[in-house]
């Protein structure tokens, strides 16, 4: 069910914010830029169509998670979750407004290792906060990683609910975005995405930033992509970027390893490795 204008108006009223503009209008979720006392925030309004109680539960889980994390590399939540009274059917909350750009807008040219390392390190640092709480992001993609104007990176949109609602592709029952999923996304529970799947996805973003290509090509039909994903046909970073140090190639072999247990098993371990690697 689409979020109605009345539900957006209710959310603005309850939170005391004024709408500046629309950032994203989905079928079950709308995202607006709002202001409060001169500061900008992001308002998220989720439709609760009555038949899907879990949508409210997932929204509550996402807000609770974000409220529990204090990291410059994870988007912050700025209000509690509010649930609209009947006959409205919506829930809303405020998040920190991140200036800058989604990294998708920045992936057109090959990045240097120093910038890629910064992105991967900061994403891993943010994800580590989630992994510490036994939360797996499961849908890391260039659409939900933001580079602020000051050059720092932040992870957005953690939580199954958001990803399930907005993802363009759902594989094996798990959220995911075409080209940005791990082989585990193909598996039925309980072998689905795990912490080291997030690590794999950080590797995808790092690979794309360095080469402008996905490590597992997402061209052709969906079936062809799924077959490549199942085989974990990883592109050759060494061939694409022979200028990089062999230790960088080795790091990517580990991050993008077909066997999940062979990767870094916690985002913090990846962050440490990136710190050790240097620019």
């Amino acid at each position, binding site marked *: 069910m689409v979020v109605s204008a009345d539900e957006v108006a209710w959310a603005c009223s309850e939170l005391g914010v004024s709408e500046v503009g629309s950032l994203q209008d989905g079928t079950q979720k709308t995202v607006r830029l709002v202001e409060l006392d001169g500061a900008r925030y992001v308002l998220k309004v989720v439709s609760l169509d009555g038949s899907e109680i879990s949508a409210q539960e997932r929204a509550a889980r996402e807000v609770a998670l974000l409220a529990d994390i204090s990291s410059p590399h994870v988007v912050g939540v700025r209000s509690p979750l509010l649930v609209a009274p009947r006959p409205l059917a919506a829930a809303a909350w405020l998040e920190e407004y991140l200036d800058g750009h989604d990294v998708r807008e920045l992936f057109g040219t090959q990045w240097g290792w120093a910038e890629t390392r910064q992105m991967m390190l900061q994403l891993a640092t943010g994800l580590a906060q989630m992994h510490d709480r036994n939360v797996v992001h499961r849908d890391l993609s260039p659409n939900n990683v933001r580079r602020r104007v000051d050059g720092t990176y932040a992870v957005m949109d953690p939580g199954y609910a958001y990803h399930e609602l907005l993802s363009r592709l759902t594989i094996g029952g798990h959220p995911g975005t075409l080209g940005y999923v791990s*082989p585990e996304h193909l598996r039925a529970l*309980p*072998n689905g995405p*795990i912490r*080291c799947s997030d690590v794999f996805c950080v590797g995808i973003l790092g690979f794309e930033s360095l080469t402008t290509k996905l490590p597992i090509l997402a061209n052709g039909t969906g079936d062809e992509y799924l077959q490549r994903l199942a085989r*974990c046909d990883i592109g050759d970073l060494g061939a694409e970027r022979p200028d990089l140090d062999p230790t960088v190639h080795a790091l990517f072999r580990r991050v993008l390893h077909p*066997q*999940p*247990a062979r990767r870094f*098993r916690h985002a913090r371990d990846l962050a440490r490795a990136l710190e050790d690697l240097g620019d």
Partner: protein
Amino acid sequence: MTEILIEDTARNNLVSWATDAISAKRAEGVVMNAFCSRRDSNGYKPASRAAADRIRLAGGEVWFMPMTYAAQISGAADFQHYSTWDLWPGRVGDLSTADAREKHLTRVFDAQADLETPPLSPSNLLHAPSGADASIYLDLISAARSMGNARAAVLAGTPAFWAGGAELDAFVGAVAEFDISQWFLTVSRPLSDLPPTWGEAEVAGLCRTTRSLSEGASVHISFGDFGALPAVAAGAASIGTGWDGRQKISAETLFGPRPDSDGGQWLKRPSVQGLLGYVARTDIARMFQQDRPRATALFAGALHPDQPKQSFNHHLDVLNAVAGPLGSIRYEARYRLMATTYGSARIAWAQFSSTVGVADASRYWIDPLERGLANYGRTEGW
């Protein structure tokens, strides 16, 4: 160095033979289990706590494997010792509910505490790396962790489970997140034949799993014997073995009904280091008669008298000689050394076969393990 842990036996000689082996530095410890040891003495078998104390006194480490996976085997019927542990509040093998899992775990950990052995989380019998079995395993280990007892864990599966390819790898990724520091990996076979009918995919799966888990933990290959060598090449730290067939293999048929309380048949066939397998005593004796120097090199020593304990000690020496050096080198070097050892064993089998006039059994003892090891090597890019 790669270590040897002696698996349990239904005979009453576990303590005496194991402590002798530990004192002689042939083995490092014992894995007692609920199907072979009793909670209380019955006159023939000592009480497990007393046995554990004596093994520890000799300097050995002691583990207690609850054998939950074996209790779930449909033909399991040999509960004469197992029932003394009273590990199930309800139906034996039922792990279908959270309550059943928690109560079983509580009894397992209580038994281990009574023995003063480290907590060792049990495994259900996994027939496939996805689906209901896999879910129950993850629920079980998760419950063990919530009880504060998930530092060591058993992972037991059928050959089909270990041959699960990418599904197995994904499952291992999930279990690796529990940060277990000591793994006991077990292949539960349908039949107790020695040599077992190893499969390439199963051996490769055990190797990949060992390699993955060994990066953050110590891995023991339970009831592994010669079949554990590829996994040792992939990073396993210890091998389970013994003097009886049921210490060298975990097979469904070994948990079926048994008419008496003795330990079954001795495995009298001597192990031959150069062949990485067992041969008939008459065959190796014939080779000693025909070509003593080559026989001595192949056998690794003089042919001992036909006594089970001497066969056992020689077997430990053989395993230590082959697996020991693997334990002190890095992964790729381990793999290459083991591959070379298999190549040498294949040649030795051909020579032994022609010298003695028996069939070349390398297709049973060497081929499947060598192929599984090579399969693992290919996934590593070697």
